[in-house]
């Protein structure tokens, strides 16, 4: 189908599976799933588990939102509320956002896109899923045993010396999740370096791969730091080994430095893969080569690099020195530039294309709109002077939800809709999907835009009630109303995607008529990904908008 690939039959005969079978039908036993080393099956395992955790985290969020609808805080105890927002943050960040796009879409697509049979280390890949599940189990057990109440940031000395909740078990979960992330990152970086098919040069790589390469690097360099930092907090809680406790001469702010050294780049673990997804979708549905390929590729690397140098902007009002804060502020402003480049390049990609508004594109445009707001509210917080007022208010909450939910989750949904036919071989109901995309966009804005205003008015984050400040009420009511819409918007895809698995139309190998190696193999792909030897001879995104337009015109003229 695609012109991107030249094929040569032959080679690796002994790896060929039965041509009747694809990766889904190749083995039906539970064992064949739980002990699989196939990156595609592992991606499906991840998809099931992240969906589960997403809805658990979502339920916690719903609890938080409904509690805040009235200023009095009369739905639950403060302790319960604190545990709910901690559960929401911990589950969403460590069990969903950090994992969703890389471990599901990345796992599935990286070998397909570069023309490899699997990731470099399939067994490590399976191990990473088991580590992830162990992490999930620990965090869930901690929740069942009463939950932790520290917030997902685990600031010391509250988390280490004061909280009586199940912090250690939660931290152990996060620690294990960190190793899952490290193994995934290692696999990605080495696969992209070493496993590319002949002819797949660096600048023929899809931007999705560039995004995941940058993500992998961050996972490798950042995650070990937070892992050992959190381990130290566990030590401090269990053995009273002093590291951050001020009563023993330790420095609690050191924890914040260590934590944000990872957790700021971690934001890019969540968003860079989404950038990759959007790059693919914008070009495939504009039927036009992406504008400024090199610029987008390098901006991903620039973000990964600069992302490690800006952690201090989370600490403008903690006790770091003024000069330190000023430098972090400057670097943060510089970091805004590569993100801006990407958005404008995507916009320019649509110019003079043949835009097809299929459901992935609707989600993709939704991503652009939400990420724009998330990105453009960044400078408020990068300005040290403004951040003094806005730090840790709902303004920050709204900002990072626009980036994380509006960016990362919209990107995930866009990618899931785009590659769903490839992953399952089935088509979902396109018109429900489109309308749902719009519903999520509207619901999201309704939920989080009011939070900018209430944050700017001074509503602190993690407050259980605000009876003393009734002027915040209407914004919280709006936000809670929006969150109901958003909840529906997130639940509906679960139904129509699941429905498509059984009742969906057969998708064919390339329903979007897209270019790229993953579309050149069958849907769902066979276990060995390609039934022929892949040699790449053409450039990436080899669309021809002019010729396609002429064809369209001819077809239209013919009808008339």
């Amino acid at each position, binding site marked *: 189908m695609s012109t991107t690939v030249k094929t040569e039959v032959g080679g*690796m005969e*002994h*790896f*060929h*599976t039965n041509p009747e079978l694809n990766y889904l039908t*190749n*083995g039906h036993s539970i064992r*064949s799933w739980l002990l*699989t*080393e*196939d990156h595609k099956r592992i991606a499906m395992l991840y998809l099931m588990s992240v969906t589960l955790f997403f809805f658990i985290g979502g339920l916690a969020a719903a609890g938080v939102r409904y509690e805040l609808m009235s200023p009095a805080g009369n739905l639950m105890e403060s302790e319960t509320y604190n545990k709910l927002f901690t559960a929401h943050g911990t589950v969403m960040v460590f069990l969903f956002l950090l994992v969703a796009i890389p471990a599901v879409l990345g796992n599935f697509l990286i*070998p397909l896109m570069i023309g*490899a*049979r*699997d*990731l*470099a*280390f*399939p067994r490590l890949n399976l191990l990473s899923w088991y580590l992830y599940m162990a992490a999930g189990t620990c965090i869930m057990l901690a929740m069942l045993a009463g939950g932790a109440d520290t917030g997902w940031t685990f600031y010391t000395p509250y988390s280490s010396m004061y909280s009586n909740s199940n912090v250690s078990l939660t931290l152990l979960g996060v620690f294990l999740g960190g190793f899952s992330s*490290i193994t995934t990152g*290692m696999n990605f*970086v*080495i696969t992209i*370096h*070493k*496993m590319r098919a002949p002819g797949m040069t660096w600048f023929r790589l899809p931007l999705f791969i560039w995004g995941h390469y940058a993500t992998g690097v961050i996972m*490798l*360099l*950042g*995650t*070990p*730091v937070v*892992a*050992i*930092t959190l381990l*130290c907090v566990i*030590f401090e809680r269990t*053995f*009273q*080994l*002093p*590291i951050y406790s001020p*009563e*023993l*001469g*330790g*420095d609690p702010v*050191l924890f914040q430095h*260590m934590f944000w050294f990872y957790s700021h780049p971690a934001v890019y673990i969540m968003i860079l893969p989404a950038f990759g997804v959007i790059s693919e979708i914008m070009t495939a549905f504009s039927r036009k080569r992406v504008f400024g390929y090199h610029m987008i590729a390098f901006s991903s690397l620039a973000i990964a690099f600069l992302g490690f140098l800006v952690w201090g902007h989370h600490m403008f009002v903690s006790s770091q020195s003024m000069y330190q804060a000023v430098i972090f502020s400057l670097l943060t402003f510089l970091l805004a530039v590569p993100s801006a480049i990407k958005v404008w390049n995507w916009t320019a990609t649509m110019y003079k294309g043949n835009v097809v508004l299929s459901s992935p594109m609707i989600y993709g445009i939704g991503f652009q709109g939400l990420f724009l707001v998330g990105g453009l509210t960044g400078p408020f917080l990068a300005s040290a002077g403004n951040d003094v007022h806005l730090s840790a208010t709902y303004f920050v909450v709204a900002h990072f939800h626009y980036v994380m939910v509006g960016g990362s989750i919209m990107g995930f949904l866009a990618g899931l809709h785009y590659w769903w036919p490839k992953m399952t071989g089935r088509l979902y109901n396109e018109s429900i999907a489109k309308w749902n995309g719009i519903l999520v966009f509207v619901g999201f804005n309704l939920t989080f835009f009011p939070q900018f205003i209430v944050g700017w008015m001074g509503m602190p984050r993690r407050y259980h009630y605000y009876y003393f400040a009734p002027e915040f009420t209407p914004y919280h009511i709006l936000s809670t109303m929006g969150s109901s819409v958003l909840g529906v918007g997130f639940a509906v895809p679960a139904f129509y995607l699941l429905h498509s698995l059984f009742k969906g139309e057969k998708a064919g190998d390339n329903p979007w008529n897209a270019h790229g190696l993953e579309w050149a193999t069958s849907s769902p792909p066979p*276990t*060995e990904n390609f039934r022929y030897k892949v040699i790449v001879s053409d450039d990436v995104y080899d669309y021809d908008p002019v010729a396609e337009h002429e064809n369209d015109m001819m077809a239209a003229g013919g009808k008339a």
Partner: protein
Amino acid sequence: MSHAAHGDEFNVLKFQYEDMDQQNDSYIVGMWTFLVTEVMFFGMLFLTYSFYRANYQNDWFKAHGELSWQLGGINTANLLFSSFLMATAVRQAQLKNRMGVLMRLGGVLACAFVFLGIKYVEYSEKYAHHLFPGPGFAPEVSHFQGANLDHVQLFFGLYFAMTGLHGVHVLVGILVIGALGMMWFKGKKIVTEDYIPTELVGLYWHFVDIVWIFLYPLFYLMPNPSAGSGGGSH
């Protein structure tokens, strides 16, 4: 499963690779990448160490007197020697000299056990002196010449955290080297035909050695901060 389809016992090439070169390259890059994550892992602890040492140099100098630089020194020499043995084992693997590899791996294992033995002596001595941080921390006050005991505890906290983590790495090293030795002993083709697995284990062991080379001077050989610059330790 298809992965079993290549169950050719002489073929150590894995399903996902095109040829041995690609596979070996991936393994080597993989090992180095793993070591990078290890550097970041220990790096955080080293940073924490530097931060507190800069703040509490006097107390830490007094605390470090409790550690035996002789025992630490023996362990350093021991690990350095084991690293040397490891390097020669890799050479023997390249030469496909099975006995040579087995002898040297045995030597490395012996050194690793000696290392852990000495560590055990050191730890139990600290424990007996109530120097393990936490509720049981009750040091002999007179040993510390008026140093703030909280900072002494912080010193031992990091001492146990960092050398303990290193000890865990030595333990893992013993397991890995043991497994590698078993494979050589049984003459498995995956190790005898190709020196790369031996080299990978070697890389890991050198890393464990290097971490100790930083730990030893940082904990055992501190200069006296009151003695001005260049003051010796003992």
